């Protein structure tokens, strides 16, 4: 990875998830210089936090691995991690971005040997596992982290643990004096790929997320199923560690709701259908899934996936949006509502309730530096008023991985067109 000077023929890609990586690589592979900015210490974004993808149920490691290999082979992409764009000025063909880079306290000498991790005692919440577990304050963000370098949590700085970590490092990779810095980067076009965040389930008051420990979100469920997750891939209840075999999935938790998210988040139905496979995989004998839904929206051409799950005797579909959840004396989450097929009331206890939470843009349109046209949910619109700032992936709409990659490729093409014009004008 060579350091190149950013000019107004450079493309700035904000966000290093699957969309940002794709946009950066597509542009770089046509010969453009790209600066890729990622807020977290490693690339991969929410995709790397999934256990499996739909529809083929392969592991995200696969798709990401291909992109990481492309990235390692491409000197035109400069990756900045722990970095956030805090300001954007200028216009088409001539942008200047302010980028704040937080200290990693680990330099490029790191070989990811893990000696520092073994040397320290302090533990901090692990955001990669949605804080379901903790990790050491000297940590590798995840198993396939790129860059493959350790990070020190800021909480460790100034403690004896920090000195122990520094002493343990054989390569002189730990630099406790690193400071936050802000740099200016020039760019001709910007691909905004800051992705999505799960809707705050605690705001859906009747569902009791945050009050009942056995009510979790769909993204947390992904981590429970993953062998790198806090339970080592066993689906256990957070309250008592009991095996959760009778699991409810509640659709439209926050989505399609004027009180929460106005839009349909598109992926949640497919995500829950996919997650019923996890239940069967982990508990082939007596695993039981119940999907509470308004209508199943198996987007794109995935109706066959839906039909296969429907044919599975371990999965029950109940056409009803759950009205409220309570907790019984055994810690079970109890779903209350009315089955609209027959209008019968139900009160059904489950070991675990998974809320298929909606997607909202991580950076809402209104918070993007510059004046960006966004819809009422904050997703970036394709609008000439945006100049050469192009939304990609889930910053532009609620998309699955497949469509996010298509969207990112389209955004890269638009950005390439802009910097080509700049190059022609300067020639």
């Amino acid at each position, binding site marked *: 990875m060579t350091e190149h000077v950013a000019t107004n023929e450079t493309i700035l890609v904000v966000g290093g998830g699957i969309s940002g990586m794709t946009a950066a690589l597509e542009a770089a592979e046509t010969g453009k210089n790209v600066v890729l900015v990622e807020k977290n210490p490693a690339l991969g974004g929410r995709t790397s936090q999934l256990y499996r993808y739909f529809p083929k149920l392969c592991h995200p490691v696969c798709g990401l691995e291909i992109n990481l290999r492309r990235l390692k082979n491409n000197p035109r992409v400069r990756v900045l991690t722990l970095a956030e764009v805090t300001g954007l000025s200028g216009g088409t063909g001539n942008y200047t971005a302010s980028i704040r880079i937080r200290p990693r306290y680990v330099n490029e000498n790191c070989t990811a040997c893990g000696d520092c991790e073994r040397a320290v005692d302090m533990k901090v919440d692990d955001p990669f596992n949605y804080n379901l577990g903790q990790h050491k304050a000297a940590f590798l963000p995840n198993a396939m982290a790129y860059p493959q370098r350790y990070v020190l949590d800021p909480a460790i700085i100034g403690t004896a643990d920090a000195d122990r970590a520094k002493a343990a490092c054989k390569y002189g990779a730990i630099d406790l004096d690193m400071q936050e810095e802000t740099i200016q980067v020039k760019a001709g076009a910007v691909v905004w790929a800051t992705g999505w965040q799960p809707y705050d389930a605690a705001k859906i008051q*009747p569902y009791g997320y945050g009050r009942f420990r056995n009510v979790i979100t769909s993204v947390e469920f992904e981590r429970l199923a993953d062998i790198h997750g806090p339970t080592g891939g066993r689906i256990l209840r957070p309250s008592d560690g009991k095996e959760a075999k009778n699991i409810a999935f509640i659709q*439209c938790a926050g989505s*399609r*709701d*004027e*009180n*929460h998210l106005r839009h349909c988040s598109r992926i949640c139905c497919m995500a829950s259908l996919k997650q019923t496979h996890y239940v069967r995989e982990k508990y082939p004998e007596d695993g039981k899934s119940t999907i509470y839904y*308004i209508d199943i929206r198996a987007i794109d051409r995935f109706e066959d996936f839906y039909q296969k799950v429907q044919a599975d005797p371990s999965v029950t579909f109940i*056409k*009803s*949006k*759950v*009205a*409220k959840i309570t907790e019984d004396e055994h810690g079970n989450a109890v779903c*209350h*509502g*009315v*089955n*609209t097929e027959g*209008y*019968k*009331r139900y009160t059904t206890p489950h070991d675990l309730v998974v809320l298929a939470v909606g997607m909202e843009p991580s950076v809402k349109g209104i918070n993007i530096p510059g004046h960006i046209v966004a819809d009422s949910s904050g997703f970036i619109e394709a609008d000439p008023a945006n100049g050469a700032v192009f939304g990609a992936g889930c910053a532009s709409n609620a998309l699955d991985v497949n469509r996010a990659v298509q969207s990112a490729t389209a955004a890269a093409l638009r950005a390439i067109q802009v910097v080509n014009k700049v190059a022609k004008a300067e020639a």
Partner: protein
Amino acid sequence: MSANTALAEKYRNNFLKEIEEQVEMGDWVKMCMQCGVCSGSCPTNFQSAWEHPPQELFMMIRAGKREEVLTTTSMWNCTSCYNCIVRCPRKLPITHIMHGIAEYAHRIGKAPKMQATRFFSGLFWKNATRTGRVNELKLSMGLYFKDGLGAGIKEGMKMKDVALGLMKAKRLNPFELFGGHKCKDQKGIQAMLKKAYEIERSRKAAKMAG
């Protein structure tokens, strides 16, 4: 007129439009997406009291089940707790729609005559507008004797101890049965209510004619 046209005319479904035009807040009915949260959130256990929960009523309206909707007792059981309005993902004013349908059914003479809520509403209105004050004794007696003399006496005996307790605490005056107290300007309040009723009636009559 061909047989086809005659059949099309006969089976044309206009009930949703009728509800939209005649019922207050009725134009919201079409926004329901049948998620079932209103029914699930209803504190009235409709399996005994409600024949049809709100989202079923909305579906019946769309399906053109005019007779079933207008003659059911379901919407009369709404207690106005507003739980459904708070939770409805489409922000339908469900409580108001329930009252709107009930009022419309009553207005065109379709509402079940002896449904307790409807009966009580009529009784309350007559009771309060006569003197400008609610006569609680007459109101409760009227409700007791709704289903005949025998049932009324039985109901009255059941509540005997409560009545005696209220009398002891000076919260119930048996002489209220003869006339009772009234407001200062009885004629004035009656004229005011009559005028309001006329305005309301002419507005609704115009809608029904149009």
